[in-house]
């Protein structure tokens, strides 16, 4: 059994019917990995890799582009409820987890197989997202604000995470959302949770590029905001 990226966690042996159970000490919420086993067909080694993901749902939210999604094993019905800060329902979404073509793996997305029931909502900081899976697993995210200032000349983005429910060090990252675009991580500390991402000297942020900033909750749920430097008026 391997962790994503190829780090061996442990080896185990199946019983007479091919079943196995093993332990991954310290497995994180939302963790992904794969099992690997070898079959022999004549002189050919046939090697199978089967990925797995934690049954506890991990929820990713982009409140700029108005989507909510996550990786999950295929074949589960999943329900999403979005409420405002006082608990009023703003929108719901539901569907069955399965292949997301552009990911090349199973999951769910309000842009794909778990669509909004009705018009897509305006997701805002302060809102709550609740997820429930047909196996009884649930997840919840209280969306903090990611404010920011994008300096195209200095190629930096900086700001604060705003949410009085945030505690301790909050890890996050900034990324240039283009093919093979660079990214860099940060750790934001209380009480103001400032962050600063410096691409100066190694990447030139151009007008019109999306710069995504995200923070990660302790259970690995993620919240994104997206900043875009204005393109010049021609």
């Amino acid at each position, binding site marked *: *059994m391997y962790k994503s990226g190829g780090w061996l966690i442990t080896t185990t042996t199946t019983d007479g019917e*091919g*079943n*196995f*159970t*093993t*332990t*991954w*000490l*310290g*497995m*994180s*919420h*939302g*963790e992904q*990995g*794969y*099992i690997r086993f070898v*079959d022999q*067909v*004549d*002189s*050919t*080694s*046939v*090697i*199978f*890799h*089967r*990925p*797995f*993901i*934690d*049954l*506890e749902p991990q929820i990713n939210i982009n409140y700029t582009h108005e989507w909510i999604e996550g990786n999950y*094993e*295929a*074949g589960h019905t999943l329900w999403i409820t979005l409420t405002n800060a006082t608990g009023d329902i703003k929108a719901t979404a539901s569907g069955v987890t*399965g*292949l*997301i073509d552009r990911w*090349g*793996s*199973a999951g769910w997305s309000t842009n794909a197989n778990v669509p909004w029931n009705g018009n897509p909502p305006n997701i805002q900081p302060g809102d709550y997202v609740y997820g429930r899976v047909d196996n009884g697993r649930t997840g919840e995210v209280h969306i903090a604000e990611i404010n920011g200032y994008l300096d195209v000349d200095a190629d930096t983005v900086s700001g604060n995470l705003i949410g009085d429910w945030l505690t301790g060090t909050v890890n996050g990252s900034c990324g240039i959302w283009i093919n093979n675009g660079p990214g860099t991580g940060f750790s934001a500390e209380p009480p103001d949770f400032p962050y600063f991402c410096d691409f100066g000297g190694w990447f030139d942020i151009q007008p019109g590029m999306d710069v995504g900033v995200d923070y990660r909750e302790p259970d690995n749920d993620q919240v994104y905001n997206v900043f875009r430097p204005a393109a010049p008026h021609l």
Partner: protein
Amino acid sequence: MPDNPGERMRQEAMSVQPTGVNEINRFEFWMDSSGWTSMWGEITVGVTVTVWLPHEPYSMTSSADPKCPGCFGFPSYALLYPGDVLSVTTGEGELPVTIHIPDPLEAHADSLTGEVWG
């Protein structure tokens, strides 16, 4: 002759005699729970590998990996599921390798208990 073109090609591939020259050393699968599957492996340098699939498209032909002599990979993914049977050929004179995808083929994880099972 069957009407299914993929089946017809598979039958023809299985009628040739082996020479033992182009044996596939290694054939690997990455099979997601959604059925999304990528395949790659290792064989004699310069040999074309064709996999005959149970679902459309019926076949895919490998391309060589310039960074790894003898390595091959298929440029697109296929949808494969537990219980599927596929055939891999390496050209005239070679017997196909028939691969059965195990059924069931499952892996699950639970961070609450720290268990992985399947």
